């Protein structure tokens, strides 16, 4: 039987967390202080540390994956949860404390004003440059930003940002499609389906604990997987649009 959350809001803040015991409680407390009107859901993605335990007494909603499914699937769980409990907006942010929840209010205001389907908190859209980013990562970001522009008709400068506001209209598409990390491949797929995706400038802090979800090997695999998925997303979006009544 489903356990209905104590709903207070039409917006759900979702924080996917994998081995983030060092930072998650601070992130959650900051979100609750800055966005008291929003419900907060932590998707604990099979953490092997004390991520779930440190959230005890925090007043948030906690969904536990029994094993690690990866970032994309954790986001998808949040989408499925938001769909089931009829939330209108899903706000995603990282559990490592890099995002400042205080910036979400401006993002929310722009989301409502611009009639966006997805609004990305972007580190690079203000200057349209990747200053201070290591060369390998910068090349990857430029490549995927250009690919999104080329294939979807609108350039997105920060395709890997974890801070996003996702509107309800996109939930069915996100629940059905199997994106990797909800980066360029998912953005292109959604844009080709006709959803409006935009960017809003934000700043982020340094990661103080934990490690990136990308290993050395994934720096080779990630671009190949993303490019392949991006191409297949274009095909799938075309098929879906043709089938639509």
């Amino acid at each position, binding site marked *: 039987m489903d*356990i209905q959350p104590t709903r207070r809001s039409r917006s759900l803040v979702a924080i996917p967390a994998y081995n983030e015991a060092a930072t998650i409680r601070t992130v959650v407390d900051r979100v609750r202080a800055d966005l008291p009107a929003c419900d907060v859901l932590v998707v604990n993605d099979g953490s092997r540390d004390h991520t779930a335990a440190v959230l005890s007494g925090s007043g948030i909603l906690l969904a536990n994956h029994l094993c690690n499914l990866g970032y994309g699937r954790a986001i998808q769980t949040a989408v499925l949860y938001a769909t089931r409990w009829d939330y209108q907006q899903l706000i995603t942010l990282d559990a490592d404390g890099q995002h400042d929840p205080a910036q979400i209010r401006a993002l929310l205001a722009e989301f409502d004003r611009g009639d966006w389907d997805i609004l990305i908190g972007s580190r690079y859209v203000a200057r349209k440059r990747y200053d201070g980013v290591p060369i390998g990562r910068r090349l990857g970001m430029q490549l995927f930003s250009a690919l999104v522009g080329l294939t979807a008709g609108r350039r997105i400068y920060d395709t890997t940002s974890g801070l996003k506001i996702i509107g309800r209209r996109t939930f069915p598409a996100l629940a059905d499609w199997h994106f990797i990390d909800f980066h360029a491949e998912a953005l292109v797929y959604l844009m080709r389906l006709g959803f409006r995706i935009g960017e809003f400038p934000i700043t982020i802090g340094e990661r103080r604990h934990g490690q990136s979800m990308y290993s050395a090997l994934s720096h080779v695999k990630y671009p190949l997987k993303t490019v392949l998925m991006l191409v297949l997303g274009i095909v799938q979006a075309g098929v879906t649009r043709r089938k639509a009544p």
Partner: protein
Amino acid sequence: MTGAGVLVGAAIGIVLLVWVANLIRHDRLYIGYGVIFVVGTLAAMVVLIVPSLLDAVTRGSIALLPVAALSLVPLALFTFLMVYVFAQITILSNRVTRLTQELAIRNARQEPEVDARSVESR
């Protein structure tokens, strides 16, 4: 290799690519496995189509291990079998994923709210 051999090899490669792409698109082959088959097949096709590369690979492989051209047939069959096996693994894995997500959603719980100040004062 004769022109006909190259054509047959390229046709097998294209069939494999289309099959793999279709499986990935329908979420029946994990993208991480699929990308290995796609890159491998494309590399094999490039070797097959570019005569100088094919000569170099042939010379190299014969020097290491002389094999008959017919041994490529079981190799192609084995590759198709591998795709099939990985597709079955992906289907099972997807079922586990859906189950894990559903359990997480159904068992999601609201943590009680404990005021930090009241805990400290006790």
